[in-house]
């Protein structure tokens, strides 16, 4: 099964022999007379007609038949030699170094055999009209050439002989029609000596077709390229490792469709949507896609939604319900355990099964460098995940050929497959320092857990174990009970489930400690930077212990409460200060305004309170929104001036400038800010 085998060597020998024959019989070629036709052949080979199926069709057959009918066999061989060389070099982008003499000779051999048989047929039909001669001549040539080509791909790549034959026969109609129309017309006028005009006429006719087909094919290519680029961008966002998965899957699909003789008019669509099959992943949260190790049950559900999302996107692009269904079901499994619909066997759309195969193939090719491994892994999936009939078609030769097609990237260390695997022993060892006790539970039915003391935990484990039995797939879930947090891994066997239950409360406590110590260091940094003006409190209690006697408070709900808040505070500012210290007054109003605005922007609603201590006015603002990012504070204190246009929302900076002291407590549960102003509150009370 390689390029040089008995069959192809024979073909190339025929090719060489025909050149030798042609040179020996050179005297029989009227070079001057046939020059226009040779010119025609060269042009047709340089600008082939592109067919919708993506294949190229050179009209040069027209030239061969004219040469054969008008001038005989030998000039036709000269035409073929020129045509073969031109079209071969064009395919290699005119790069001499890439030329392979053997391939040229074997291609030549195929054409020579075809034209010989075609010539014999046309000679035999001599008494009949030139239309019949040309039409049948074209048919014989194309048919023989096709069979010879199929023989070559059978011996080289191993595709079954006569693969896709019905479809290829249909395509024969193009050359046959073309030759039936052009060749007789040409021949009739040759005799009149108008050969140059005739060549120009035929050229114009063919170039028009080529021009039109070119524009159409270009649009198709643009569509494919943009699909590939879309998917590459979204893959790049997910991780470097994924880049190229969509494009490669599309490439594999194209090859598979050829192998499976899938109808040509739907091929470009299917390849295109195969490329885009994972586009829905771009709508999922990054954590899920980049998470190392197994997903929890909730995460798993979210991950699975990508098939539906992709399908919706495809439907929005194409308006094609069938195509949307192809993509929707690309994660169904042949045994019915897939998602989103749990379809089984032949109920899964054929196209979805093909996409699933290409998807797995791509993953296997990128994670295994050994082709035999890829084949074995693939066969393991047969009947479980993938359609066994499709898998049957795949041989080692095909995998070798496929690896040449995909864009290679550095292989991953170890296997990182689609199937989720158990966490490695090392990971367990690493974590064991932080985790609490782990127990192994066996679940058969709802009596199995009876001995558990924690009823709340038991009630949560039961339904999850039942779920594990139903879907017979491993998963884990995080469960809370009695102020403890557990991680429960479910490993279903035939009729029972192994539950590994780990108390992760200590690990979470450790994380909380880590957060606390981070906050403590920020407290020190900020205190130093702000010259003790800002105090970061680890507990809200610290602030509340610091409060003086309450004067007033109000709820903050809407934007209009910003000015109401200022008015409220104004009531408790001594008249004397208002008159003598307008600047101080302005600072108090400003700090209140910023504090309340901050609250409305980030927490929706909260509370403003006014307290007093001797000579100190206290403004206390609390909310239950998401906390403020403490790590921003040092920067804000160090860089006092803001001249950039982003200086809007510099509320905290203004509070820092305006207030005499600030205490802040912030956590995910909310934020409390105490603003203190030194005033002479003689009339306080």
């Amino acid at each position, binding site marked *: 099964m390689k390029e040089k085998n008995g069959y192809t060597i024979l073909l190339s020998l025929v090719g060489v022999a025909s050149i030798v024959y042609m040179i020996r019989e050179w005297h029989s070629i009227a070079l001057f007379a046939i020059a226009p036709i040779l010119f025609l052949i060269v042009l047709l080979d340089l600008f082939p007609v592109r067919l919708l199926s993506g294949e190229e069709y050179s009209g040069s057959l027209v030239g061969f038949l004219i040469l054969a009918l008008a001038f005989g066999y030998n000039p036709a061989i000269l035409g073929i030699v020129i045509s073969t060389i031109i079209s071969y070099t064009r395919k290699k982008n005119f790069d001499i170094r890439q030329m392979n003499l053997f391939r040229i000779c074997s291609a030549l051999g195929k054409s020579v055999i075809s034209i010989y048989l075609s010539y014999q047929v046309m000679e035999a039909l001599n008494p009949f009209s030139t239309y019949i001669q040309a039409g049948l001549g074209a048919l014989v040539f194309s048919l023989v050439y096709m069979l010879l080509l199929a023989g070559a791909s059978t011996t080289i790549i191993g595709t079954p002989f006569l693969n896709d034959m019905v479809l290829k026969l249909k395509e024969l109609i193009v050359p046959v029609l073309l030759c039936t129309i052009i060749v007789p017309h040409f021949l009739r006028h040759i005799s009149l000596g108008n050969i140059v005009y005739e060549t120009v006429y035929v050229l114009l006719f063919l170039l028009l077709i080529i021009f039109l087909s070119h524009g159409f094919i270009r649009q198709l290519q643009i569509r494919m390229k943009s699909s590939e680029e879309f998917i590459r961008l979204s893959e790049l966002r997910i991780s470097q490792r994924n880049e190229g998965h969509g494009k490669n899957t599309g490439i594999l699909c194209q090859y598979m469709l050829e192998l499976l003789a899938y109808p040509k008019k739907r091929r470009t669509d299917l390849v295109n949507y195969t490329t885009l099959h994972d586009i829905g992943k771009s709508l999922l949260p990054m954590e899920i896609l980049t998470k190392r190790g197994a997903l929890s049950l909730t995460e798993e559900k979210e991950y699975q939604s990508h098939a539906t999302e992709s399908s919706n996107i495809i439907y929005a692009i194409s308006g094609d319900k069938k195509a949307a269904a192809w993509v929707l079901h690309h994660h169904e499994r042949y045994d019915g355990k897939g998602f989103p619909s749990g379809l089984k066997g032949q109920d899964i759309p054929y196209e979805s099964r093909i996409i699933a195969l290409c998807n797995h193939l791509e993953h296997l090719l990128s994670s295994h460098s050994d082709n035999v491994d890829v084949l074995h892994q693939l066969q393991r999936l047969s009947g479980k995940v993938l359609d066994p009939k499709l898998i049957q078609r795949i041989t080692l030769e095909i995998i070798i050929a496929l690896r040449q097609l995909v864009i290679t990237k550095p292989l991953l260390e170890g296997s990182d497959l689609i199937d989720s695997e158990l966490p490695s022993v090392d990971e367990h060892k690493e974590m064991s320092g932080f985790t609490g006790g782990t127990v192994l539970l066996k679940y058969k039915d709802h009596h199995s857990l009876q001995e558990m003391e924690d009823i709340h935990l038991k009630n949560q484990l039961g339904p999850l174990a039942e779920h594990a039995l139903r879907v017979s797939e491993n998963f884990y879930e995080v469960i809370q009970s009695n102020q403890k947090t557990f991680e429960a891994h479910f490993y279903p066997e035939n009729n029972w489930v192994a539950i590994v239950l780990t108390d992760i409360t200590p690990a979470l406590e450790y994380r909380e400690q880590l957060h606390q110590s981070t906050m403590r260091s920020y407290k020190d940094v900020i205190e130093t930077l702000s010259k003790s003006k800002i105090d970061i409190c680890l507990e809200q209690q610290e602030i509340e212990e610091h409060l003086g006697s309450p004067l007033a408070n109000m709820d903050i709900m809407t*934007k209009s409460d*910003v000015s109401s808040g200022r008015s409220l505070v104004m009531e408790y500012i001594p008249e004397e200060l208002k008159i003598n210290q307008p600047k101080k007054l302005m600072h108090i109003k400003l700090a209140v305004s910023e504090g309340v605005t901050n609250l409305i922007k980030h927490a929706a609603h909260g509370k403003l309170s006014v307290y007093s201590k001797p000579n100190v006015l206290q403004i206390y603002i609390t909310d239950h929104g998401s906390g403020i990012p403490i790590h921003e504070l040092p920067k804000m204190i160090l860089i006092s001036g*803001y*001249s950039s246009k982003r*200086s809007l929302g510099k509320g905290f900076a203004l509070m820092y400038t305006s207030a005499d002291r600030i205490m802040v407590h912030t956590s995910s549960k909310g934020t409390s800010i105490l603003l203190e102003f030194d005033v002479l509150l003689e009339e306080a009370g």
Partner: protein
Amino acid sequence: MFAYQIVTDEVQATIYFEGDIDIDAGDVLEDEIEPAVAPYTNIILNLEKVFFVDSSGIGLIIRLVQVLQELGRNVYIEQTQPEVMEVFELLQLDEILGKEIFR
């Protein structure tokens, strides 16, 4: 409390602001004032009766000025109270909008 009045002649519109400018003034500035003055070549923001502006209010003023300047209008801010000017300076408004805008 925030209120305004617009006085116009053929080429010029003067907006007389009155009261505090904070986040609550946003809708009025964007939906009423901006379209009303946009057609005029010269637009003057008179802040004589504004005694308080906070950072949100300044954000709104910056936005209004920049939108109008992008339309090719000449925009000026005049008769700013010293207290308000101090907040402008705290946020370096003169560097953002350019000193020549104040008069």
